């Protein structure tokens, strides 16, 4: 094991221990779901080791990458949380409506780091983005409770959709679709259909580590990888380790909301009254699931997993088969109180600022927020800060 990996492992263990002890006020963050079997808990622990592992060029890192391991980005306040890294996406929206993810040029995620061997071969510090492409920044999300989001039946998401605003409430949710036509739900524009793909794919597009379901190392901005730069055979991580990581991410518990006092409960009512809950649907219910702890469980998700037009001020890139530059998936508000940056690109530094920056379909609720009395506004923010 490299020194880097050992250091990262120690740091992650340290963060895990300190976080578990409660200094961050996060009793559940980073822990497994309640109700797992012994075997499932073992798999959670095995997956946590892989999640906290740091790759090196000798173990598959790169040649293009954003982070050396999952926990190099998802680390605050404990592994599985958010972090300060900002990912760079790019795409091109053609006049006929086709959204080109620049897959032949290394897109849509353009990695911001390269291995020493690639730098020596090409003299670059990051993957080049084609000129003229639209760019979008993406903050690192926390992934607490993502297994529950994955277990929500697709029929639930489709039932929320109202693409033509048939009920005339000013809210028209649309589903995004992946390149094979399946309904997406993960990612800021709901590109990825399943958590398994989200997790396995991240090895590749974040760490440059090839996986059993994506054996190609890819290109560097459309150019072949120079010979000798990444000689490791594919896949660079085994199906077993990908499976452990999936088990860990899938059974990572949602951060438990704080108990609501009277003011926060009033804020909860205001949240619904001014229309926030039309998109940030408070509770979702999972369907049948082989992991009993994920099956038929209602949980506070605060999302409909649909795309909504958020207006021109927030617009950046198109993504997938449906999402236009101004459409974003309703962000789940699970663990909102642990966040330090808000909105898809982190442009908001507080929850209030994030609310104020809502446009498009969110404008009506934003205006209602602005019209609230000071005490009502404070109550709403207290509620949100408890999630």
């Amino acid at each position, binding site marked *: *094991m*490299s020194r880097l*990996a*050992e250091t990262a*492992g*120690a*740091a992650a*263990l*340290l963060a895990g*221990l*300190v976080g578990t*002890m*409660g*200094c961050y006020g996060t009793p559940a963050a980073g822990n497994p779901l309640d109700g797992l079997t012994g075997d499932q808990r073992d798999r959670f622990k*095995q997956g946590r*080791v*892989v999640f906290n*592992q740091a*790759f090196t060029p000798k*173990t*598959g890192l790169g040649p293009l990458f954003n982070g050396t391991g999952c926990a190099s980005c998802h680390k605050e306040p404990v592994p599985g949380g958010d972090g300060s890294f900002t990912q760079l996406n790019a795409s091109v929206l*053609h006049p*006929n*409506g*086709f959204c080109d*993810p620049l*897959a*032949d040029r290394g897109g*849509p*995620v353009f990695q911001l780091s390269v291995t020493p061997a690639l730098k020596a071969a090409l003299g670059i510090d990051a993957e080049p983005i084609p000129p003229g492409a639209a760019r979008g920044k993406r903050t690192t999300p926390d992934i607490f409770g993502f297994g529950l989001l994955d277990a929500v039946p697709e029929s639930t998401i489709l039932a929320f959709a109202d693409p033509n605003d048939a009920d005339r409430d000013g809210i028209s949710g*649309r589903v995004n*679709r992946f*390149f*094979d*036509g399946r309904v997406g739900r993960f*990612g800021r524009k709901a590109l*990825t259909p399943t958590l398994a*793909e*989200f997790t*396995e*794919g*991240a090895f*590749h*597009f974040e760490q440059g580590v090839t*996986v*059993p*379901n*994506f*054996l*190609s190392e*890819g290109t560097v901005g459309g150019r072949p990888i120079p010979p000798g730069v990444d000689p*490791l055979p594919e*896949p*660079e*991580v*085994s*199906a077993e*380790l990908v499976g452990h990581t999936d088990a860990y991410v899938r059974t990572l518990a949602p951060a438990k909301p704080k108990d609501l006092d009277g003011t926060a409960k009033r804020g909860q009512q205001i949240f619904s009254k001014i229309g926030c809950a039309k998109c940030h649907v408070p509770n979702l219910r999972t369907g049948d699931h082989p992991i009993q702890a994920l099956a038929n469980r209602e949980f506070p998700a605060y999302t409909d997993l649909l795309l909504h037009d958020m207006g021109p001020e927030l617009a950046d890139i198109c993504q997938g*088969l*449906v999402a236009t530059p101004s459409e974003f998936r309703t962000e789940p508000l699970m663990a909102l109180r642990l966040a330090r940056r808000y909105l898809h690109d982190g442009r908001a530094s507080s929850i209030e600022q994030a609310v104020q920056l809502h446009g498009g379909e969110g404008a009506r609720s934003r205006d209602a927020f602005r019209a609230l009395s000071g005490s009502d506004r404070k109550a709403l923010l207290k509620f949100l800060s408890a999630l």
Partner: protein
Amino acid sequence: MQGACMSRGVTLSALALTLALLSVLACGGARREASVPGPATPTSPTSNVLTATCRSMNVGAGTMDVITGLSFALRVITFRVDESTEVVIRGERAELVDLGPGRVVRIQYRRTPQGNLADRIEEVWTPPK
């Protein structure tokens, strides 16, 4: 309260760091196993069916590029299309030129020495207007 927490945190941090270092030393074997990539496995036999998104068609060259992948890890695959290729849109025979970028197609294909040859291309999803 915060000070107490921080003080406790420093003490616990020292303890945790010691534990972490001990665990690295004691569990080096197990952790090394987790950090080493698994053995390379032979490429799986290629399926002869792929559902993907049309990226572009070159009718003159008789090729079609499609987008496929895993989450945000994407790639473009080129298929050859010849006079024997059956193109189907909404259940009816069509031409390659009738397809367009952004449409999802189900491709039945064969691997040949000249590349992937599409036997049948069926449109299965069209983008909303």
